[in-house]
C-alpha cells in the first residue's frame, strides 16, 4: 500500500477541567487509506467524536486542545496548521456529517443556499453556478424534485431528507475523506439503509475514504473494512471487520458485540437475558488512574490489570489488542 491518505500519530487531546488538564484521548495512532472505510466504535464518552473533530481542527479551544501528536493529511501536519490552511482543507478535502440532522442545518436559510454557499466558498463559483451545483447535489443524494426542494427550509423536510442535505453539503467539494459521526442514529432503519446505499455509491463514484463513527455493530459489519475500538480515550483493539465480529479479542469488544439483541429469523419463545457489561464508562476526571481503564468493568480483570495499563500489541495480520489476557495466552 502507498502512503496512507491520513495518518494519525500519537494523538493526545486534553481538556481543562477546573484547574487540571486531563487527556481525554491518549496515544492514538491510526491510518486511513484511499477509498477505505474505517469504523470507530465504543460507548459515548470514549473519545470517538472528539477524535473526529480534531481531524478538522474543531476541538473547542479552550477548554480543549490537541496536546501532542500529529495528524498527517497527505503528508501535511494539521496540528498547528493555521486557520487559513485548515479552511482550505475543511469541507474541501475532509468533510463531516454530524450526528443531529435536526440541529446541524441553519434554520433561516433554504437548503439550496446552504449547499451553494459551500460551493461558492471553496470553488469561488458564481451564485448561479453554485445554485446549479446545489441542485445537482440534491439530485445525487436522492431527493425527489430537487429544483423545488432547494427552496425549502430545513423544517420543511423530514429527518431523512435533512440528513441527505447534510451529506450533500459534505460532498459538494468531493472530499477525499468523509467523516460521519453517527450519521443515522436519529433515523429509521429504512432511511438508514438508503443513506448507506448513498455512501457506497459515492465511494464508488469519487473514491472517498470514510470514517464511520457508530455504536451499531450491524452497521459496522455492513459498511466498514476495518474497525478501531476505543475505550476511555484509547484504542484498545483494531483489525479487519470480519475478525472484529467473528473473533473479538478484547473483553470490552466481546461485551459490545454480545450485549446487543440480534434480530433472528427463528426467535425462541423465551429469549435468554442479554450479556451485560456492568457499570459505566469512566468520567474524564477518573482518566489517568493506574491500570487498565476497563478493569473495573472487566469480568477477567486480574491483579496486574489494576496496576499496569496494557500496551497495544500485534496479534496477527493488521490486528492489535491492548489486553493482558493476550499475553497470558501467548505465554
Amino acid at each position, binding site marked *: 500500500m502507498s502512503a496512507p491518505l491520513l495518518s494519525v500519530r500519537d494523538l493526545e487531546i486534553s481538556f481543562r477541567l477546573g484547574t487540571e488538564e486531563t487527556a481525554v484521548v491518549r496515544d492514538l495512532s491510526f491510518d486511513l487509506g484511499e477509498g477505505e472505510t474505517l469504523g470507530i466504535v465504543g*460507548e459515548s464518552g470514549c473519545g470517538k467524536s472528539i477524535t473526529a473533530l480534531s481531524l478538522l481542527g474543531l476541538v473547542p479551544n479552550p477548554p480543549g486542545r490537541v496536546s501532542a501528536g500529529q495528524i498527517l493529511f497527505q503528508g501535511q501536519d494539521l496540528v498547528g496548521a493555521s486557520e487559513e490552511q485548515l479552511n482550505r482543507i475543511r469541507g474541501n478535502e475532509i468533510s463531516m456529517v454530524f450526528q443531529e440532522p435536526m440541529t446541524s442545518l441553519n434554520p433561516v436559510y433554504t437548503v439550496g443556499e446552504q449547499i451553494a454557499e459551500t460551493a461558492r466558498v471553496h470553488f469561488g463559483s458564481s451564485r448561479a453556478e453554485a445554485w446549479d451545483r446545489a441542485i445537482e447535489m440534491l439530485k445525487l443524494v436522492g431527493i425527489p424534485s430537487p429544483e423545488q426542494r432547494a427552496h425549502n427550509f430545513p423544517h420543511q423536510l423530514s429527518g431523512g431528507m435533512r440528513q441527505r442535505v447534510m451529506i450533500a453539503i459534505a460532498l459538494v467539494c468531493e472530499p477525499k475523506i468523509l467523516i460521519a459521526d453517527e450519521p443515522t442514529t436519529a433515523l429509521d432503519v429504512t432511511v438508514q439503509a438508503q443513506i448507506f446505499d448513498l455512501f457506497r455509491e459515492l465511494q464508488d463514484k469519487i473514491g472517498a475514504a470514510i470514517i464511520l463513527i457508530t455504536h451499531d455493530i*450491524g452497521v459496522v459489519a455492513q459498511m466498514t473494512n476495518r474497525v478501531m475500538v476505543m475505550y476511555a480515550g484509547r484504542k484498545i483493539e483494531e483489525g479487519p471487520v470480519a475478525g472484529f*465480529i467473528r473473533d473479538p479479542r478484547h473483553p470490552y469488544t466481546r461485551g459490545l458485540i454480545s450485549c446487543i439483541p440480534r434480530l*433472528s429469523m427463528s426467535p425462541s419463545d423465551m429469549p435468554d*437475558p*442479554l450479556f*451485560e457489561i456492568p457499570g459505566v464508562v469512566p468520567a474524564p476526571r477518573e482518566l489517568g488512574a493506574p491500570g487498565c481503564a476497563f478493569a473495573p468493568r472487566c469480568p477477567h480483570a486480574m491483579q496486574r490489570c489494576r496496576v499496569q495499563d496494557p500496551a497495544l500489541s500485534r496479534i496477527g495480520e493488521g490486528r492489535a489488542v491492548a489486553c493482558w489476557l493476550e499475553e497470558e495466552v501467548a505465554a
Partner: protein
Amino acid sequence: MTALSVRDLKVHFPAGKGKVVHAVDGVSFDIPEGTAFGLVGESGSGKTTAALACARLVEATAGEVRLGETDITTLAGDAMRRARRDIQVVFQDPYASLNPRERVGAIVRRPLDLMKVGTPAEREARVDELFATVGLRPDQKALFPHQFSGGQRQRIGIARALATHPKLIVCDEPVSALDVAIQAQILNLLARLKAEMGLSYLFISHDLAVVQHLCDRIAVMYLGQIVETGSRREIFTSPMHPYTMALISAVPSPETGLAGVERIRLQGDPPSPIAPPPGCRFAGRCTFATDHCSKVAPVLTATGGNHAVACHRAQDAEVAAARNALVQGAPSG
C-alpha cells in the same frame, strides 16, 4: 385475562385550515396479562400517539381503551386518577422526564403521594423497596437526577412507574436514548420485572431487534394503522406484509452485513397523514403493488394463530418468494 384491550382507536389532530392529521386511524389490539406487546414502525407511523392514547395522555378521537373491565376513554376526574394506578409510563428520554430540582427519592414517591397510598412511613419503605428492585441503593434517594448516569436515570423512571403496583406499563422507546452497553442492562431489568411481577407492557420501539427480544406479540404500524400483527415467532419466521419484510430486511446485522445479503429496498418517504392515499397506504412504496392496491384498502385479516395481515397480495407467489428469500437468507439463531 386481558390487561388492555384497544378497539378501533382513532386519534386525529387538527392541522389548521380544516385539515386533519390522521395520526392513529382505527387501531385494535389486545394485551393478555403478563405479556409484552410491541408496536413497531417508522417515525410518523403513529405508534407513540397510539400508546399515549392508551395511557390517556392524549385524548382519543374515537374508539375504546379497556384497562381490565373499564373503558378509560370516558373516565373523568377522580375515577381516571384511580385508574392511573394500573397504567403507568416509562418515557424515552431519562434526561427530560425527571424533574431536575427534585430529589430522586421524592420523584419515585410522588405517585404514592398523589394517590394517597398508605401512610408516609409506608410510602418511604416502598420507595426503598423500589430502589432495590431496579438495582439502585436506597441511600441514593437523597441525590438529584443530574448525579446519575442515563442508565441509572432510566432505572429511576422505571421505579416511579412501578410505585403504584400497575398492571400495565407503557414503555415509549425506553432504551433508545441509552448507550449500547446500558441498553442491555435496562432490557434485562424490564424482562426480569415482567417475569417476577407478572407485568404487562405496551412497548414502543423502532428497533426490531429490541422488540423481538422483549415482546411476546408484535404489531407493525404504518401511517396510523396496523398492517400486520402476530406472535414474535409468526412475525419473524413468516412476515406477511411487504412493509414488515422491508423493515426486517433494513436492519443491519453483523452476519448479513459481512455476507453482503441483498436488502428489500423502500423507495421514497411515507405519504402525509393529513391526506392519506385511498387504497393501501403503503402501495406507493411497495414493489408488489397493483392497481387494485392503490384503489381498495386491504383490511387486517387473520391468517391463522395470532397472525393477521392487511395486504391484498400477502398470499401471492411473488410475495411468498421474497419472504422465503428474506427468511432463508438471514442467519438463524
